[in-house]
């Protein structure tokens, strides 16, 4: 098994998995505590629209996805702040519309879209060097922003009304958080694909929530768990010769179910 580490593609896969886990642990923590799982699902599926546009206009599909998801996140956030009602309907509409735009533009693009499936289901074993640099830059941005605005983001995700009374820029901070979610989603597309993004974004943080008492400790444990899940998933998928994205998600889900079960037993006694 270890000789596979000699291959550059495998080392790249592990680096990509670790980078994605860092972003997931940090941003996923906010998603879980602020209960933004469905918003994040909407944003991630809208990313497919960006990938379709990328194909159609001949730019890097991931770049298209980045632009499109950030725009979608800002649009949804603005609507959420203006009209509070029917957010779940809105999420459903964005979710489906994003996919629909993607399908249309992929169809309209002449020729065959060879790696379309890797965007939907991820293929971490095919991450190019350039994407790793992009992911590293995004992780650095996420860490810097969260370190700088830790108190503000905690106040806004805990009690937005009180944050507003304290004159914090609640609207801008909420939009910033959505943009960070969008960027994290784009990073995860390479690793597990659009359809499975939501699981990797939320499961490590949800497990971490069971054992931690602070935002920063929840982030730290979620990052560690994410790294364990992705590395284990990549290894297992290599050994069994099955898709890596799905393996990572199944490892995470089984761990989550196990953690919940243990927690129940502990509270039962």
């Amino acid at each position, binding site marked *: 098994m270890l000789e596979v580490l000699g291959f550059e593609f495998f080392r790249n896969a592990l680096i990509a998995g670790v980078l994605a886990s860092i972003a997931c642990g940090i941003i996923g923590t906010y998603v879980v505590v602020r209960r933004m799982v469905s918003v994040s699902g909407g944003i991630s599926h809208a990313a497919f629209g960006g990938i379709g546009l990328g194909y159609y206009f001949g730019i890097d599909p991931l770049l298209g996805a980045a632009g499109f998801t950030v725009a979608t996140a800002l649009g949804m956030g603005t609507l959420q702040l203006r009209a509070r009602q029917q957010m779940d309907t809105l999420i459903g509409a964005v979710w489906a519309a994003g996919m629909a735009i993607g399908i249309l533009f992929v169809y309209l693009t002449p020729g065959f879209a060879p790696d379309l499936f890797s965007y939907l289901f991820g293929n971490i074993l095919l991450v190019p060097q350039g994407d790793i640099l992009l992911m590293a830059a995004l992780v650095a941005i996420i860490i810097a922003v969260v370190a700088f605005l830790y108190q503000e983001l905690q106040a806004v995700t805990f009690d937005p009304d*009180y944050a507003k009374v*304290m004159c914090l820029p609640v609207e801008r901070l909420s939009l910033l958080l959505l943009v960070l979610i969008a960027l994290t989603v784009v990073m995860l597309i390479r690793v597990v694909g659009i359809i499975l993004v939501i699981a990797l974004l939320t499961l490590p943080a949800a497990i971490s929530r069971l054992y931690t008492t602070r*935002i920063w400790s929840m982030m730290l444990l979620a990052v560690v768990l994410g790294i364990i899940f992705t590395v284990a998933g990549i290894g297992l998928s290599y050994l069994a010769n099955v898709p890596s994205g799905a393996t990572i998600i199944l490892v995470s889900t089984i761990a989550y179910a196990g953690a919940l079960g243990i927690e129940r037993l502990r509270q039962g006694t």
Partner: protein
Amino acid sequence: MSSVPVIEVEDLWVRLHGRDVLEGVSLAIHPNEFYAIIGPNGGGKTTLLRVILGLLPPSRGVVRILGSTEAAMRRFLGYVPQFRTFDFDYPITVREMVLSGRLGHITRLPRRYDEGDHARAEEALETMGIAGLADRQIRDLSGGEQQRVIIARALVGDPKVLLLDEPTVYVDAPTEAQFYEILDRLRDRMAIVLVTHDIGVIPEHVTRVACLNRRIYTHDSSEITADMLEAAYHCPVDLIAHGVPHRVLSEHSREE
């Protein structure tokens, strides 16, 4: 009372979902006052507080805090929201939550708590008798303890006025008695505004009572007498105290 009112509301109108929730509400709350606003559920009490706190823009009218309409003046308000308006499962310790009440006073970026902030947090924890719980998770506390944390967070910002929205809805009777003792101790440090639908809870030391049901009806009174409580029942609405319905009595004049 010649000093500047801590809160001054002038001819406030709020329209929500095509319905007037507040109509021409005016009131002035002076330092050292203990002001009770009572009224039925849906009478606009929470709406009035939200407008004062800057969480809801009014259709018409102005709110002045210490004589100024600037948003930054809100840092002089201590807010105790209706219990359970936020998520008690959030991973945050008592100390962190109380400290967060200082954020309105920190303008330097990045916002970090200094020794002064920590000292004030300790003081607020002591005042509320929860210093021993500082490192606990808020979800592990009892209802009464959680409420003390919420008040401590409001106190840590050195407010000129403490706004309490239905503060005793979720606490049991002994906790409620302790709660009013605490308010009595805070009285000489700040004005207090207590909003409630239950006129049975109006404590003895209230200096003024207003009834709010879309419009506001005020009762001037510097001492607490049976008359005043009775006046409170004169609201042109059915108020319910301790489960006993009171019939509508005579209408009385609206504050202009």
